[in-house]
């Protein structure tokens, strides 16, 4: 009798487990199906396509690694790669510094904290297209910036100033997001650390550099990773400023823009997939180096 009851219970426990698992599969099947079809499968498919001469209607000829060899010798690709590396080298430190500055200020006991936080974050809300439109207006030859400087610079139309202008507008746009990440990191620093520093008579300046800044290490690395990845993928601003050409004189050509042109204008889909895979490799190497040097990036 007792055994029978125990067995029955085990049976019902077993079937409850099976039921839970079945329900689990039923619940994840739709999201996972979408995910496989539009994220996982495309990642693999991209590598497959990159080994073909692939027209708009599908594969024409298998070419092995020829696309990769061509890419290695492709002057335009090298130009695009150099552009995004230069862009990253300037934009990442600038938006980190500005984001940190804004976060530290907004984290003080001041009047109107929510207002200032919102003000700094505001440009991050707008679409890249709207931001570029506003900057094209402000930076045009007869625009506000030129009238303040008393100059006549065609910022976006000159190959010396086009990329730096986009850098400036993107630092301005995204530093608000970096501020939010830094704020979260700042708020995870325990207050007693500051109390100890105050007891030692440390000046605010010294406290910041000797205590806050080093304690923000996880925050720095998180922001660094997000910022670098965002920069390497940059596309919208260059496309809109140059009308999709990457001009003047290829000065605003980025890797994603080159990939877009290769596919949509030149209809070389296999080669475009190769560019995508190469971009992935570049980003992957950056991420890997960072992880090896600093461990897993986390905000707090």
């Amino acid at each position, binding site marked *: 009798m007792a055994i029978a009851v125990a067995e029955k219970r085990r049976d019902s426990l077993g079937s409850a487990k099976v039921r839970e698992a079945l329900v689990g599969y039923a*619940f*994840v099947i739709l999201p996972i199906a979408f995910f496989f079809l*539009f994220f996982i499968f495309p990642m693999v498919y*991209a590598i497959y396509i990159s080994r073909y001469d692939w027209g708009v209607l599908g594969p024409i000829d298998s070419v092995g690694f020829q696309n990769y060899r061509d890419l290695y010798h492709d002057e335009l690709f090298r130009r695009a790669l150099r552009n995004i590396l230069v862009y990253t080298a300037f934009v990442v430190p600038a938006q980190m510094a500005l984001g940190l500055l804004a976060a530290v200020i907004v984290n003080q006991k001041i009047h109107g904290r929510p207002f200032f936080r919102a003000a700094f974050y505001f440009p991050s809300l707008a679409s890249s297209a709207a931001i570029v*439109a506003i900057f094209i207006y402000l930076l045009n030859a007869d625009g506000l910036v030129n009238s303040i400087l008393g100059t006549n610079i065609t910022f976006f139309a000159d190959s010396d100033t086009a990329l730096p202008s986009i850098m400036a507008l993107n630092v301005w746009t995204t530093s608000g997001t970096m501020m939010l990440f830094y704020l979260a990191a700042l708020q995870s620093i325990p207050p007693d650390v500051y109390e100890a520093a105050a007891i030692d008579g440390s000046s605010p300046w010294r406290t910041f550099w000797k205590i806050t800044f080093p304690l923000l290490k996880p925050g720095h690395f998180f922001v660094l990773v997000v910022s670098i990845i965002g920069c390497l*993928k940059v*596309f919208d601003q260059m496309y809109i400023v140059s009308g999709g050409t990457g001009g003047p004189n290829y000065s605003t050509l980025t890797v994603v823009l080159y990939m877009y042109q290769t596919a949509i204008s030149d209809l070389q889909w296999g080669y475009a997939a190769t560019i*995508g895979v190469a971009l992935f490799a570049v980003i992957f190497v950056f991420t890997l180096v960072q992880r090896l040097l600093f461990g897993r990036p986390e905000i707090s």
Partner: protein
Amino acid sequence: MGVVPASDAPIGEIPGRSTGYRATKLLVYTLLVALALLYFVPFFWSISTSLKTIPESVQGFDLIPNNPTIDAYREVLTEFNFARYAANSAFMATSVTLLNLFLCSIGGYAFARLRFPGREALFILVLATLMIPDQLRFVPVFQILSDFPHTSWNLDFPPVHYNLIGTYQGFILINAVLATNLFLMRQYFLTIPKDFEEAAKLDGAGYFKTYWRVMLPLAGPALAAVTILTFQGMWNDFFWSLVILQDPDHYSLTVGLSSFIGQYKTLWPQLMAASVISIIPIALLFIAAQRYFIAGVTAAGVKG
């Protein structure tokens, strides 16, 4: 990092009320106002210019227009078709948001609470894609959509196939489940105490009822974050709408703006009006739900 509204309490505040206190305070406020101006001024000028006439817009840079007019808005919305673009963007952003709310919450719930073989492996796979640049999907996704669901292979099954390039459906499908949202929902469900589900079980509620009636109402902050992040992301999206929706009737606001810049660069009041139109809905959303916005961005981490 849970999806809770950010606290307003300044935790990391630097003490030191001694000698340099007033000087520091002054410096901080000066910096604040200067920075805030730097961040706001471009918007002031775009609003101002959007209310000017074309002749006035090229004459000078008075912040207050002489004769404010909304003509530029009217023209942009009707003659330049931005009403249509805004409707397109609103439709696509809303559809994608609703799909993500449902699919990511039900998936997130299963990943957080239901035990099934392969759960961890599947979830790690989802997380891994967060590391991969979205644009890597460009070529394959285009191929998949252009002969959906055949993906350029000569298969006989299924017998029907569609070209989804140039359709809203194509754009909506590829964004229907976003990894960040799945991640956000799962993390939030993990923080909800199990007591609620056990109580529901005692009441005889099934799994779906527990998810729908008990867990979803408890996940308000996470659902708010998903709604805001997704709607903003889709409303502001440029890359995918440019790639998939190439004909003017299907343009999103952002692609419409880009095309307007290409054709009528110096119609400044109209250009600024179009920009303001694209910013306003997100700005309103931000004002209404600032806390969830900030908590969501911080929790989602990888953005843009």
